């Protein structure tokens, strides 16, 4: 039986991140009967909208409302969490760039165990939480046990748990602002200046249902045209792997992978992509994956549903022509 379970909600512009609902699933893997409390920090209308959005998925929602929390600073949030969390509690945090800033230090400040980047959880037995992690960029997995007798900070890999939006009775929003800020707003040694957006973020590939993704096999920037043509024919968006960004042929915002975007399309076309684990790490939600690569041993063929051994420079234009041809027949 686990102690009280909390989840730290990441949100942006009044919308809870997908992980808000994935953490519900993760918490139930710890203890199916656990009462789960969401903690949301922010300010104003955006904060209230998020609280209402998640209220039906959590038994209780603790909100911390302050103007200075409009952009979340992990150093501030860490102090606030230490002030409001009960001793011995478990807190789940998304293992995203905010969670990575927040969580390791939080475990020290709470004097609790730290279980980073869990991809699965398998219950608690005598204060030992069992979980699955990945090492070596996902090449191998490990079973780990975490001693939660003194509480624990658990980060979960975004996308690893299937989001749950089942209704819970309760969903009461409790304002914890006074308690969190009773001794004043936390002083920190760091100041947020601004966010510099990745260049030309014209397409949000994380929301695309169809992605036509290209890798080193495109060979030259001028050849990208065939990729755009196929994406247009399929009604999808163009994405890429890291080498294409390193060569500065496509903007960083189109990069799929652990160092780029995590995407959840329905269909993923991997064109001339060898399929490193770092790249595959950015593809979630088990899309229908088609790999086209001239190297029959490319690891991407292990991950793909359908494979074609071909040079994309020859194959892709033909495929585009046929798709456009079949469409015009349909329309006439």
């Amino acid at each position: 039986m686990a102690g009280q379970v909390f989840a730290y909600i990441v949100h942006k512009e009044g919308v809870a991140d997908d992980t808000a609902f994935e953490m519900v699933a993760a918490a139930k893997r710890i203890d199916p009967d656990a009462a789960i409390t969401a903690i949301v920090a922010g300010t104003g209308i955006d904060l209230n909208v998020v609280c209402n959005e998640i209220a039906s998925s959590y038994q209780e929602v603790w909100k911390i409302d302050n103007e200075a929390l409009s952009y979340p600073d992990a150093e501030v949030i860490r102090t606030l969490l230490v002030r409001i969390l009960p001793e011995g509690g478990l807190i789940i945090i998304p293992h995203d760039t905010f969670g990575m800033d927040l969580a390791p230090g939080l475990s020290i400040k709470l004097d609790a165990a730290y279980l980073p980047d869990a991809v699965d959880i398998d219950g608690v037995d005598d204060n030992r939480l069992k979980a699955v992690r990945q090492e070596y960029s996902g090449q191998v997995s490990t079973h780990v046990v975490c001693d939660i007798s003194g509480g624990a900070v658990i980060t979960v890999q975004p996308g690893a748990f299937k989001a749950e939006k089942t209704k819970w009775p309760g969903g009461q929003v409790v304002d914890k602002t006074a308690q969190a800020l009773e001794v004043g707003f936390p002083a920190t040694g760091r100041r947020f200046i601004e966010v510099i957006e990745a260049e030309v973020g014209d397409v949000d590939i994380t929301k695309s249902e169809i992605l036509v993704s290209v890798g080193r096999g495109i060979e030259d920037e001028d050849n990208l045209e065939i990729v755009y043509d196929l994406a247009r024919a399929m009604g999808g968006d163009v994405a890429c792997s890291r080498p294409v960004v390193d060569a500065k042929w496509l903007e960083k915002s189109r990069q799929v992978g652990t160092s780029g975007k995590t995407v959840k399309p329905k269909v993923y076309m991997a064109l001339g992509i060898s399929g490193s684990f770092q790249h595959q790490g950015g593809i979630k939600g088990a899309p229908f994956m088609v790999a086209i690569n001239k190297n029959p041993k490319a690891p991407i063929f292990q991950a793909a549903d359908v494979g074609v051994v071909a040079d994309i420079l020859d194959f892709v234009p033909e495929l585009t022509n046929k798709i456009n041809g079949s469409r015009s027949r349909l329309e006439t």
Partner: protein
Amino acid sequence: MEILVCIKTAPDTSENEININRDGTDIERDDLVYSVNEWDNYAVEEAIRIRDRVGGSVTVVTVGDEEAEEVVRREMAMGADKGVLLSDEVFNSSDGRGIASIIKAEIQKGKYDLILTGAQADDGAGQVGGMLAAMLNRPYASLVTCLEVIDDKKIKVGREIEGGNLEMIEINLPCVLSIQTGINEPRYVGIRGIRRTASVEIPVYGAEDLGLSSESVGESGSKVKRLDYFVPDPGEGAEMLEGSADEIIEKLIELLKAREGIK
């Protein structure tokens, strides 16, 4: 500026395929080529560049065995001024918190303005930097991909956040940063550099030297323990389409339409 970089020895995954041993207790280590953890190498390069701009020194520290000493030498060949090896049998099987406690004890013997770690290593946890900062009560920023020294009191850094956006922050010194790959291009370490540092004396400190009790580190101090390694079911691989180009394309379009891959 006095800079400390925490480094780790890790299998070079660009050179090795990672396999699991027969009983699943460990990865197959016999033929592995070890080197410095890739992220840490960027951190050392960044430290050297800062020192070359504003003066000071770069110290690299690691927790490990003789193999780790070679990695310390490699980073000194790159340009780090000093190296320290923290080595003791009781350190074995430490979890992230244990490693952070060991390094913290060494840090408190010196006076560092800036402490760098790699953003993560082979185990993908990315925990030691954030833990160190909390233990030392210093500000922390993770996933740093650009860094500019403003004066001897503060620096400006950019954190790589979702979608490759950059979160720009100002952070007071002394502080702890975790460094993300791509922040710079680490220099090549030639055979001459390696030779130059081959006979440099690397101080080695154990638990007693650091004032650490054996219960606080190693397996006994660990709250998180690895039980085994396994490979998740890799699946059957792709259905390979064969035939003439026309046949393949026809079949592929049919499959894509069935999966709503053509709008």
